[in-house]
Each structure stands twice: as C-alpha cells, then as structure tokens.
C-alpha cells in the first residue's frame, strides 16, 4: 500500500519510554516530516527503571533519568519531532488512574488537533507500560467526538499477535530514511549499545548500518477504527 504522508496535518506519537519512538516509528516520523507534516511525541516516562545502564555500563539508578532525558531530546532532534514529557514514572503506568491519563492525553491530542495518533496496541505490546499507555490512548480517542477523532495506527509487538489481529495493515519500509532512524536509535546510547553488541555476534562482517537495518528496517501498524 502506498502511503500518502502529506494528507495528514498533525501526527501525535504516544509511548511510555524514551527509545520506544526510535525503535517503533522513527522512520515513519521522518517520512511525515519530509512531507511537511508536524509530529509531536507525548512521552510518558523517562525510563527511570530501565535495566540497561550502558554497555559497558556508565549510568546508575539515580543518574539514569537525566541521562535518558537528554538522550530522548537528542533522538527527537535527529528526526525533527516535537516533544512533550508527561512526567509519569517507568514501570508504574498501569497503576495510574487510567481515566486521568486518558483525559490528559485527550486534551493534548485536541490541542494539537491531531489527524493521526500512533501508539501501542494493547494488550499486544509486551511491556506493562506499553499496554497501559496504549489503553489510555485508546480510551482518550474513544472519549473524543467522532468528528474530531484522529486516525489510529497501533504497534503490536507480542509473540503470536498476528493470530489475533491478523497481519499489519501498514508496513513502512524505512530504508531510504534509515540513516536518520539509526541516528535516533544511537542517541539512546545507554540503551542501544548493548543491543547492537548482542546482534553483532555472528555478523562481524556487517557494517553498523546494515546490521541495524536488518533488525529495525520495517515499522508495522494495525489501523484501529473507533467509529463502529
């Protein structure tokens, strides 16, 4: 399917963690930006409870939030995306009052006058924060007036989700913009280095670009219709 990026007027990306945007949607964001469409990231937390501390590790539990905040700002710059940080704490999103989170999201979505929202598809997003953020985003959109309601593209990443949801409706090949996606990924130094080292094993001959491209090339979404 050929995607007409320029038909949208404002995209809002909703995920809980710094780096979710770079893994899940950075290439898509670049394509929207190249089509002149503004994109804003509503990032739930600062990934304060992340296990990855860099490889070799350079962060600790108390320095990690500020490090990841700076990484997030840098990553958003690499793909020219606006950023709003929502101030929740990593690993606790599912224990927040879902309606309150949804109300906050709805207000921001309406203020930005979004024509498209990109978020995780609950409960097919593995991490409890991913599912909680996706649930709150879905609720926010359900709560909106039908005529203001944006289109929704949702990332499903759990094993076996295709048996339930079917194949993704939208597959974005990020190859032509992959250098920017890689720059965004690499901005998350505390998180990405260990991962790249892991997938490097057995692929020593590949360049960093080709190695990353192999793993992070395609961004896939299921469209969700709230109007029925």
């Amino acid at each position, binding site marked *: 399917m050929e995607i007409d990026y320029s038909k949208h007027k404002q995209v809002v990306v909703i995920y809980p963690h710094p780096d979710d945007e770079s893994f899940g949607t950075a290439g898509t964001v670049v394509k929207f930006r190249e089509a002149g469409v503004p994109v804003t990231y509503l990032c739930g937390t600062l990934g304060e409870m992340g296990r990855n501390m860099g490889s070799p590790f350079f962060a600790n539990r108390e320095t990690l939030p500020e490090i990841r905040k700076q990484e997030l700002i840098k990553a958003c710059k690499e793909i020219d995306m606006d950023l709003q940080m929502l101030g929740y704490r990593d*690993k606790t999103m599912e224990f927040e009052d879902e309606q309150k989170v949804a109300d906050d999201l709805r207000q921001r979505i309406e203020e930005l006058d979004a024509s498209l929202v990109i978020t995780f598809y609950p409960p097919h997003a593995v991490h409890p924060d991913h599912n909680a953020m996706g649930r709150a985003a879905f609720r926010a959109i359900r709560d909106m007036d039908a005529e203001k309601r944006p289109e929704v593209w949702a990332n499903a990443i759990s094993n076996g989700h295709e048996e339930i949801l079917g194949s993704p409706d939208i597959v974005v090949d990020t190859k032509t913009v992959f250098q920017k996606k890689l720059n965004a990924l690499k901005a998350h130094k505390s998180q990405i280095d*260990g991962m790249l080292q892991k997938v490097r094993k057995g692929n020593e001959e590949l360049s960093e670009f080709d190695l990353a491209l192999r793993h992070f090339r395609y961004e896939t979404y299921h469209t969700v219709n709230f109007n029925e």
Partner: protein
Amino acid sequence: MESINLNKVQEYLDQWTNKPVYVHVETTNGAYAKHFDANAYNVGAYVRNAQITYTQGKIVEQEGAYRVGLKHEIGWIYAEGLTDFEFNENNQLLMAGHDADGRLMVAMQLSEKPFNY
C-alpha cells in the same frame, strides 16, 4: 560505580546506624524475560523511599558478590548479588548487581534525604 570495597561500604553503613534513612530496593529480570523465553516469566519488585532506622547494617562477601542485610527494630531488609557501589555527591550510598552485559539485576540504595520521586 566501582567494584564493591567491603570495608568502605561497611563504613558507609555504620554511619547511619540508629538514624532514619530512606531505602530503595529492587530486583528484576526485565519486562521482556518471557517475551524472549517462553519458559521464563517476569519477576521483579521495587520499594522506593521506605523510611527505616536500622540497628545493624552489614555487608558480607561470597565468591565475589555481596549481600547486605539491614536489621531494624521489627524486621529486616536484605539484598543479594550486589557487585558495584558508589557514594555520590548527594550523600547517597548506591549498590547494584549487574549481569555480564551490564544490565542491572538488583539494587539497594540508602540516603538521608528521600530519593527523587
């Protein structure tokens, strides 16, 4: 952080004996353990900013990893698998255990003032 020095950590623990401190304790095998291995399942727990006054704090070494136990009036706090420590500019004693890839598996931290949110 640097590798744990038992004597140094013991001195830091001793300074807060019988004084109220805030404790952060956590352990986790990550939110993706089951995702990558169907036979595994995710475990984890964390406590942030519980206030305790311990009557005895002690660090013990076994085969290169450390355990810390804090005895207080009505119970205990304990962590195992600690390997690294730092006493930072905010007078916080941070201790953590990392796996071979540098990922945090366990942490115990003490501070006179509450940890940030």
